[in-house]
């Protein structure tokens, strides 16, 4: 099983979610995060003073899928979240040892 973590632009969430729905991904976790990469910060204006804000708001999407579906999910996210501009984000793929559904105790692929 693989866990796919995608850092994306907040405005792209709906498109990514719809694209993942379309290929049968059944669930995901989204959190609001802040960070920076090559895009670096952006400027904000408070009472006539410009401030560089290093940490830019992004969304982190977490999806766990069977190993064989991982590459398709990654490609789907990449296409849906792509604007071609700097700051589109990154996708990380991690190996997951175990998955347990709390309600039933089902494990691994049944629990995804």
């Amino acid at each position, binding site marked *: 099983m693989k866990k796919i973590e995608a850092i994306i632009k907040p405005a792209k969430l709906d498109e990514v979610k719809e694209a993942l729905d379309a290929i049968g991904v059944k669930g995901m976790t989204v959190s609001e995060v802040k960070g920076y990469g090559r895009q670096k910060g952006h400027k*904000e*204006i408070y*009472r*006539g003073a410009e401030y560089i804000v290093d940490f830019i708001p992004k969304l982190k999407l977490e999806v766990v899928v069977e190993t064989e579906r991982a590459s398709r999910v990654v490609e789907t996210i990449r296409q849906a979240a792509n604007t071609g501009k700097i700051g589109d984000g990154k996708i990380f793929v991690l190996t997951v040892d175990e998955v347990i559904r709390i309600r039933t105790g089902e494990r691994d692929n049944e629990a995804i």
Partner: protein
Amino acid sequence: MNRKGALLFLLGTTVATGWPTLAGAAENGIVDTGTTAWMLISTGLVLLMVPGLAMFYGGLVRTKNVLGTMMHSFVAMALIGVLWPVCGYALAFGQSIPGGLVGWNSDYFLLRGIDDTITNGVPEYILAMFQGKFAIITPALISGALAERVYFRGYCLFIVLWFLAVYVPLCHWIWAPDGWLFNAGASGVIDLAGGLVIHVSAGVSALVVALFLGPRRGYPKIAMHPNNLVMTMMGAGLLWVGWFGFNAGSTVQSGLDTARALTMTQVSAASGALTWLIIEALVFKKATSLGFVSGILAGLVVITPAAGVVQPSGALILGALSSLVCYYALQLKLKLGYDDSLDCFGIHGVGSGLGVLLLSFFIRDSWMAKASAAAGRAWTAIDQLQIQLLGMGVTIALAAVATIVICLVVEKSVGFRIDEQGEMVGLDQSLHGESGYGLVHSDR
């Protein structure tokens, strides 16, 4: 107040003691229900400005200090709310003691002698409470300059001492019927609702406190973001509404002067907001919400001293000029590097100070005619400007000197500037044992 702006319109001559008769007011002993009703509403409106200010300031600080900052405004309602009936009203509005430093009237001590008093148709209790609200909000304004870096106990001691040493004397000099600035020149210093007594005094003291305390740790290298501009905007809205009670209520009538003051307040606030919006649109190509509400405030503070004497064209000009000057005052702050954190000096001090002086050039003719009659010669804008400058100089001197002494006393006694650990953790947790929001991260 009957001792405030209204007198300025109605009297050309010096009033030594006693109450003037207001136009249309009932004789002593009979309640003028119209005026009384409006003064009750005004009292409520001015009180509403205190939570408004708490929201305005509270939204501008970092998440870890939101409650501590709001408490700075709220605690003034308790501290000054107790001191005012005990001795504040007696000191501010009693007859001048020899030398005229403050007043004293034992009837006003604990307000014990005014239980049956009706003054010019208005129960004296209302006048005392209305004035008390101004006394509450003034020290709270200063909290904008010391935000995010003082002990709560130090702040409490500071505002009590400041109230006694700065507010009470100024209020007596400028608003009491026998105050010496009230009687300066042909018709006194013009300060309808507290350009000097409230905003310049608080603004100058704010600058002194900011210089005394030094900047917040990390300022200005670390950007310190407002935690909740939504709350700041709501607070600014409450301030605008409350200001109608503040300015129009200060005429202590329900009549022509009231209508004038209310109109000028509205016009100037709108003009100020629009001007700031335009400046930012030109400079940054962005219309920021914080800029907009800063413009509202700039328009409101500039008209506070002037709402009784200027006309709408004057109010438009004053509001616009205030935003322009305040905007550049804030730029200067960035260059000079002092940390007047929420711009109490940069907006209240600068904007209202501007109004105190410039109003001289926009006074309506009828007022100038009365002043000329009182002076026994043609009274000009320059004559009045000199009186305004006198008031301004006195206010700045008293506020600056007294504040530096108070700062030293507070620092040496209970402590003023918070320790490093407390500042880093934030006031909410280290001083109040609470946090303002639920699961929101507290790192900024």
